[in-house]
C-alpha cells in the first residue's frame, strides 16, 4: 500500500476530471438518478434536468416532423396551424416553455458548478434561476394564450 489514502479511493480519477457534480462524490448509483427518494435539491434538479432534456430531445424530432408539413405546402401548414392553436395544444407550449427554461437555467448552474465555479453556491444559483425563470414562464404563457 503506497500513496495517500485519498489516491486509493475508487473513482478518484473520475472525480478529478472536469464534469457534472454527480461524478465528483459518493452517492446513489448514477443509474438510479430517476429515483427521488433520499435525494436533496441537487439530486432532484439533476433528475428533472435529465427528464426535461429527454423531453426536449423528443420534441426536437417531433418539431422536425411537424416542419416537414411546410414541404407539402401552404394548405397543409394552414391545417396544422388550425389544430395546434387550439387551447389544449397551447397548454403543451407552456409545458414546453417550462422545460426549456428549467433546462437552460439549471444547465447554466450545472456548467458553473461542474467547471469548478460557484461550487459552494449551488442552492443560491437554483433560487436565482427560479426568480428569473418564473416571470419569463408567466410572460411566455401570456404571450402564447394572448396570441390566439
Amino acid at each position, binding site marked *: 500500500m503506497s500513496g495517500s489514502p485519498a489516491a486509493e479511493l475508487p473513482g478518484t480519477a473520475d472525480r478529478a476530471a472536469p464534469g457534472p457534480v454527480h461524478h465528483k462524490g459518493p452517492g446513489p448509483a448514477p443509474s438510479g438518478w430517476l429515483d427521488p427518494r433520499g435525494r436533496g435539491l441537487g439530486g432532484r434538479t439533476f433528475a428533472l434536468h435529465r427528464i426535461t432534456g429527454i423531453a426536449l430531445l423528443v420534441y*426536437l424530432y417531433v418539431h*422536425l416532423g411537424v416542419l416537414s408539413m411546410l*414541404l407539402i405546402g401552404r394548405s397543409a*401548414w394552414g391545417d396544422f*396551424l388550425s389544430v395546434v392553436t387550439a387551447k389544449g*395544444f397551447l397548454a403543451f407550449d407552456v409545458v414546453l416553455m417550462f422545460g426549456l427554461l428549467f433546462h437552460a437555467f439549471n444547465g447554466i448552474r450545472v*456548467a458553473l458548478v*461542474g467547471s469548478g465555479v460557484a461550487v459552494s453556491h449551488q442552492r443560491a444559483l437554483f433560487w436565482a434561476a427560479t426568480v428569473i425563470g418564473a416571470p419569463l414562464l408567466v410572460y411566455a404563457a401570456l404571450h402564447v394564450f394572448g396570441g390566439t
Partner: protein
Amino acid sequence: MLGHPSNRTARVWRWTVGSGVALLVLATVHMIAQHFVVGGTGGLRTYQQVLDYLANPVIFVLECGFLFAVTIHGLLGLRGILLDLSPGPRLRQWIDPGLWVLGTLTISYGLVLLITLAIRA
C-alpha cells in the same frame, strides 16, 4: 479515436457545455424571432411568414447553427443517460457510432428542410 476514457469524458463535457452555451444564444434568438415577435395564431408563423423569415441570410445561418448545436447537445446528453444505464460491452460499443449516425441524419434532414424552404421564398 477519442483516446483515454478520462480525456474522452473531459472532451464530451467541454462539447456539452460549449453547445449548451451556444444554445442559450441561438435558442433565445430562435424563440424570440420565430415565435415572440409574431402576432396572432399563438406565436406561430403562417406559411408565407416562415418562408420570408428563412429568406433572411442572417436568420438562415442562425437557424443552421441552432440545428447543429441542438443536435450535438441533445445527443451528447442522451449518450450520458445511455452510458449511465450500464450497458454491456457489446451494446456500449454501438452507442457512439449509433449516435453519430443519428446525429448526421438529423442534421442532414434539418439542412434539407431549411435549404428547401429558403429556396422557395
